[in-house]
């Protein structure tokens, strides 16, 4: 009986959180269309979330591409189809690995930092200080961070894919000896822009919305203690990562991208 009660309370809490998250999203959208425009804050956040993530995205993209190149070659060579390596690496990266891994990496690096930063502002009464200056903290702090996340995610995903393709080329062509022209031509002929690339960008934007919203919401609603900030940071990474994987399946199932 206790187990069923606990299950019921957990379900109620989940629905309650979903409702509050939706309300918070509504406040962010409303803040976005309310003057003044927070251009400077948005640009600062694009730098913090995007530019400072460039190194990790490039390194990971290159590494994943090289692994894909090696694994793809070892598999394809059994069937004498190693000339299709470019298509295998390209489609894997563009349709799945690029947007998903970029979102997971960005969650770990930038999402957690966003939640921790806002949570610390809650704990040190900085958000209350803004309220006392008649400034809406969602307008000044949460909205620019959330929109910056949506903006940088497709850009970072594209960069990840490009680095991955380069990594696949290095592993397949330079190391394993696949013909470079074949790698490029198979990639070109396999990838359909309106289907694969547009779908990849759609996924990246959806993941950007998820990470931006969850990170800002968790930070904004955290308990005003160091333990609260810690919990908000951890839950941002966990909830955002699980949400990314679930939404990846949903988008793939619904639209086949």
């Amino acid at each position, binding site marked *: 009986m206790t187990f069923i009660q606990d299950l019921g309370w957990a379900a109620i809490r989940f629905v309650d959180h979903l409702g509050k998250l939706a309300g918070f999203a509504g406040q962010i959208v409303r803040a976005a269309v309310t003057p003044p425009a927070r251009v400077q804050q948005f640009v600062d956040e694009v730098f913090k979330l995007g530019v400072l993530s460039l190194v990790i995205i490039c390194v990971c993209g290159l590494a994943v591409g090289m692994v894909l190149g090696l694994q793809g070659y070892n598999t394809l060579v059994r069937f004498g189809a190693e000339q299709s390596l470019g298509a295998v690496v390209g489609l894997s990266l563009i349709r799945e690995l690029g947007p998903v891994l970029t979102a997971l990496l960005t969650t770990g690096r930038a999402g957690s930092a966003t939640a921790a930063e806002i949570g*610390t*502002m809650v704990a*040190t*009464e*900085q958000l*209350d*200080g*803004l*309220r*006392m*200056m*008649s*400034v*809406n903290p969602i307008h000044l702090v949460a909205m620019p961070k959330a929109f910056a996340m949506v903006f940088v995610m497709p850009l970072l995903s594209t960069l990840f894919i490009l680095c991955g393709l380069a990594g696949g080329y290095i592993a397949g062509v330079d190391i394993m000896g696949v013909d470079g022209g074949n790698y490029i031509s198979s990639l070109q002929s396999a990838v359909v822009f309106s289907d694969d690339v547009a779908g990849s960008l759609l996924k990246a934007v959806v993941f950007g919305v998820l990470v931006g919203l969850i990170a800002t919401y968790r930070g904004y609603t955290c308990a005003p203690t160091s333990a609260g900030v810690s919990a908000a940071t951890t839950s941002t990474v966990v909830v955002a990562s699980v949400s990314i994987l679930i939404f990846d399946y949903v988008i793939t199932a619904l639209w086949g991208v």
Partner: protein
Amino acid sequence: MNSPGGQDDAPVAFSDVTMAFGSRVVLRGFSCAFPCAKISVILGGSGSGKTTVLRLIAGLVRPQSGRIGVAGSDITAMTDVELNGVRRKLGMMFQGGALLDSLTVFDNLAFPLHEHTRLSAAQIADEVHAQLNAVGLSGVDDLLPGQLSGGMVKRAALARAIIMKPEILLCDEPFSGLDPISVKRIEALLRRINRTLGITMLVSSHHIPSTMRMADRVVLLLRERALTGTPTELQHHSDPHIAGFFDERVDERLADSEETEMPPVTQSGWAGA
């Protein structure tokens, strides 16, 4: 409107306010009016609700029941947008300063001016420097709040709180964590701001010497009730517990009594810890 709390001209008035956090009731049926252009000090032990009173006035928390009048408006049922209008008349000095830690001291003070005025950059710089000088801070423009001492943070927070020329200034524990010299410096600043600008000032504190020197009126929050009066009236109250609150030697007596009630710390106790 008639101000809650009985005095129509009072800039801040509570009427039968009850406030609880979960099951813990902090204020029960609290009624009080704070006089205009005076320094009112809210006294009480830890957890007695001093900070809560200030946060209720600021609209940062909402009461379970009762009415709160601030600057001629009943804020109890106001939306956040409506509250912003009232908050323009308020300044608040938070206990920890609440300065934006990613901005320099100069930018922290300039921030409300950028948000709510159309002053030029030069005018804003002049105003910021005037306020910094008023609180005795100079050469700190480019420092971040984390690079300031506790007393300097309090003074910078005070400068930011008064830069928009508020009608009412709320100061949450302005003397906590400060050395005696810094306490006297902040105290003198608050008195000077009150006398020269005529700002109604509400200060939460448990610093008795400062309260005796600066308060025009004291609100003493006790567990079941709140008492108001001048510092002298409360100091000579017929109830020895209330009068004792103003006795500076009470801390020593409390320490002595706690020492006799507490079990002695033994060597094994430390070893087992």
